[in-house]
């Protein structure tokens, strides 16, 4: 598991910040635990089969590109930082 979201940290890259906001305030709304940019997003059952679809839809709108299934792999989705790096904003 990564760090929690409460520790002091350097200013976030806007793409990471934007994605972090979506995940914590929308995707995981209602969940007590919030994630940090380096939290292993798929541990602890945080993301279920509906949430993954919403996350993909968010990334597709943000990048203006459809994400093929072959690119939906752990190496590209491990943390918010990894996702932001692999699926840049338009």
């Amino acid at each position, binding site marked *: 598991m990564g760090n929690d979201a409460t520790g002091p940290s350097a200013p976030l890259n806007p793409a990471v910040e934007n994605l972090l906001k979506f995940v914590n305030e929308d995707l995981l709304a209602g969940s007590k635990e919030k994630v940090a940019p380096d939290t292993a997003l*798929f541990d602890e*059952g945080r*993301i*279920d*089969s*509906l*949430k*993954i*679809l919403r996350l*993909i839809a968010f990334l597709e709108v943000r990048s203006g590109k459809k994400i093929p*299934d072959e690119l*939906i*792999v*752990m190496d590209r*989705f491990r943390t918010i930082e990894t996702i932001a790096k692999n699926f840049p904003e338009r």
Partner: protein
Amino acid sequence: MNILNSRASTLPHSDFSISDDGLLSPDAAETRLIHALQSRFREMALAAGAEERQFPTVIAEEILIRSEYFQSFPEFASAVNSPNKKGRYFLSPAVCYHCYQLLMNSVVPEHTLLTCQGRCFRAESANGSHLWEFTMREIVFLGSDGFVRAQCDAWKQRITSWAEQLGLIVKLAPAADPFFVAETRGKKLLQRIKELKYELTAPGLSGTDVPVASFNLHERFFTSRFEVTLTDREPAYSGCAAFGIERWCMALMAQHGVKEALRRVEESDDLR
């Protein structure tokens, strides 16, 4: 025996022909190969310490509903009539569902291994590699997350090594179940991303790769639905390794022919 042998030699050879409905009637040599494969997988499961169980070929609708089978594969299940007309039954699409039925509402030890072989039925579009009816050997692991992952990894390694020893050209790669309906796309993506399913594939009789084994982590999906817990009352983790016997037979025949395939299976080392 002589009478049987002389009679067998006059019977037609099928060359693994599959009917339009995906039904297979192997000839004598192919049947020997199938039985040899069944024996080796059984030996490996028992050597790993699995307790063997035998289950009916049919399964109650209630068990498939609890497993969310119809949500994921609405068109695969084959219904059958039951003698007393009470409840609905289907031909089993996989043997491990019976294990969860067996363990329903129970507390399991942290290192639990079950094994079973059964006839399975999936009404997928029949072609050279999708049989409607086939034989599946499964090893089901239940316990802590660490135990289940370790078992899954051990079986991946054991079966890949055995396939290589048999001279099969195989590939082990992450995979996803063939979920069809839109709502289950999320399950498929989650399966891929979390690498919950690996398949071992080998070229079949048509030359294209077909899965011969799968190694699956089910997390707490089945155990929470069947209320299978560990002593701390939390749902156990579970997973399974599954081997499609006829697929192994087809892959071995494609690469070595039936006689050589049988020799290799019978003479292969006992992998533990």
